[in-house]
């Protein structure tokens, strides 16, 4: 190239304005594609919401007949449904609280300390995520119904199968997800902040609550939300460890054999709406935090 020559357009870059039709297609392609993906994801949910306002004939809620809010006025109007929903909530809350506390502590230990068996623990934690649920469920069932006296476990906790065994099972698989989520948050945690806190007179306990915990809180909250949603919709493991106890997913499965009542759609819609609300709140909250990426030296000028 000679110096002073006018810049040539790089090959492949259009030199003429695009023709009318091609241009229009170009501009429409991305929105159309996006619309397609969003509908694909949202359609089943929309159908569920729509059919919660149905007034079906007979048991099956399969054809939309009349608009009605009967089911909304009486969401627990089917025998056993209320109990199943509250069982699910109870297990989900319990599993979330227990697995979040234990999982956060495990994550702290795994990231912070080198100890004998750390590698093994890391692998063990990963196991419930990679093992098929049905295998986990079957193993748990075997353990629960085994008549062998197990060490350290009081009689009646593991047998008969009931809401306690569901909780134990859910805590087990939720812990993995909590550990993985909190670990990610801890991995790039600046240790010098804790040193600074200690330098300023905070002991280990105060340092944890004043510095470490506030900074990993977004990770802990995300982990808790994940645990809750995993627990509340679990079917496979629950069905194997629940005995006679019904949770919401198990109720739906049972009902689907005879025809799903409208109330299921109502409760499904409520759960969906709550989930969306929670996600929105947590996103807004995280955005408000100016410390998402820990950098304190970032210049904003």
């Amino acid at each position, binding site marked *: 190239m000679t110096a002073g020559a006018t810049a040539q357009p790089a090959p492949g870059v259009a030199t003429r304005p695009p023709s009318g039709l091609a241009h229009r297609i170009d501009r429409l392609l991305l929105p159309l594609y996006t619309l397609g993906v969003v509908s694909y994801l949202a359609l089943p949910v929309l159908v569920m919401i729509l059919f919660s306002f149905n007034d079906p004939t007979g048991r099956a809620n399969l054809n939309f007949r009349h608009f009605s809010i009967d089911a909304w006025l009486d969401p627990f109007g089917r025998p056993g449904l209320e109990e199943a929903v509250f069982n699910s909530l109870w297990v989900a809350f319990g599993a979330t609280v227990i697995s979040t506390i234990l999982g956060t502590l495990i994550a702290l230990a795994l990231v912070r*300390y*080198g100890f004998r068996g750390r590698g093994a623990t890391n692998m063990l934690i990963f196991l419930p995520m990679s093992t098929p649920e049905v295998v986990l469920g079957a193993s748990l069932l075997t353990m629960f119904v085994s008549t062998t006296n197990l060490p350290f476990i009081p009689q009646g906790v593991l047998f008969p199968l009931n809401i306690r065994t569901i909780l134990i099972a859910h805590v087990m698989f939720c812990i993995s997800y909590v550990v993985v989520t909190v670990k990610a948050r801890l991995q790039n945690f*600046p240790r*010098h*902040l804790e*040193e*600074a*806190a*200690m*330098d*300023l*007179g*905070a*002991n280990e306990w*105060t340092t944890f609550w*004043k*510095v470490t915990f*506030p*900074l990993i809180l977004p990770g802990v909250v995300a982990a808790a939300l994940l645990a809750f949603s995993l627990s509340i919709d679990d079917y496979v493991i629950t069905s194997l460890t629940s005995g006679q106890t019904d949770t919401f997913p198990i109720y739906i499965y049972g009902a689907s054999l005879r025809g799903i009542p409208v109330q299921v759609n109502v409760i499904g819609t409520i759960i969906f709406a709550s989930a969306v609300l929670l996600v929105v709140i947590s996103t807004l909250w995280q955005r408000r*935090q*100016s*410390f998402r990426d*820990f*950098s*304190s*030296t*970032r*210049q*904003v*000028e």
Partner: protein
Amino acid sequence: MADVAVRLVQLTKRFGGDTTGRRVAKYVDDANADQGFLAVDHIDLDVNEGEFFSLLGPSGCGKTTTLRMIGGFEQPTDGRIELQGEDVTYLPAYKRNVNTVFQNYALFPHLTIYENVAFGLRRRKVSDADVKKRVTEMLELVELPGYEARKPGQISGGQAQRVALARALVNKPAVLLLDEPLGALDLKLRKQMQIELKRIQQEVGITFIYVTHDQEEAMTMSDRIAVMNHGHYEQLGDPEVLYERPRTRFVAGFLGVSNLLPASADGRDDRYANFRLSDGTAVRVPIAVIQDRAGTLALGVRPEKIRLLEEKDESPAGYNRVAGRIVHASYLGVSTQYIVQLKDGHRVTVYEQNVTRATKAELWSSGEDVVLCWAPEHCFVVEDAGGMAAAEADRELAAVV
């Protein structure tokens, strides 16, 4: 005799070989830290009350590790740390009356500037009114009033640096530790902060222990400097003493530019010792300069102390004279830097202020024969165990190739 603020007794830190080594290795300057090495090697040191004391050295010399042991972030392998006469060697960081300004500031990103500065006071259950008074005072001292409500993410690096300083100083520690606090700032801001730091130190009267690898920074601010290398300090003293009378080849080279020439002793009279350079020239050095230096010695002279003359010119009485030839001249505006080759092949750097000679025609140019002269008092003598011999071997090898 001033009171001692910090006393280190045979302080030693070895990384690796113990279980804690792996976790803290990343804080050590040396990349080979996890292989296990002696980071700090039996240091004895007294830092006086109210002093601005610097630990100066290249990365991996153990200066940061020493500071971290004083701060309580690192357990010594051996030795003792005393803080105002009290043994604090095994006290946790939060029980020591010492505060630290970290290299990366380490401000708490989730707290406002106000709460960052108040953090230490809150831990000591100072009343809200007092906290407010002291935090406000401190932010004024570092010239950041009005920034209370901001978060660390919303201020610049220089401001974050001041907040870090305020957060440490507000606790009125017995000693303030500073770990290369200006390292992340640009040059202009760094110069400004050096003056600022010195002003603040004089204003609050607290002992500062300052770690840096920047010799100019250390000289600008410090009352005394310990020049560290390989886990111990090679020389300790005022900036002037370190510059004018370096004790070792390392110190001479680390602080400023120096010309070191191998020399052999050749008798002495009551005031001067005579040395002979390898080209046979006799050079005189005051006996006082040699002090207790022993072993293989090398003579040094700083580039700005040397004057360039013509062969026929008279030099002041008693001055050392060595003949050489200019091999390179670079005009720097305020001064001109010459490289002069002596008869034995050694090269000497000379800075000449552009006062008597300023235009091109007046300046020396390469190829001209000159005489270097300097006052005997401007000589210094360094202990040179192996150093010069090694340098010599390098030079010979280079000559052969």
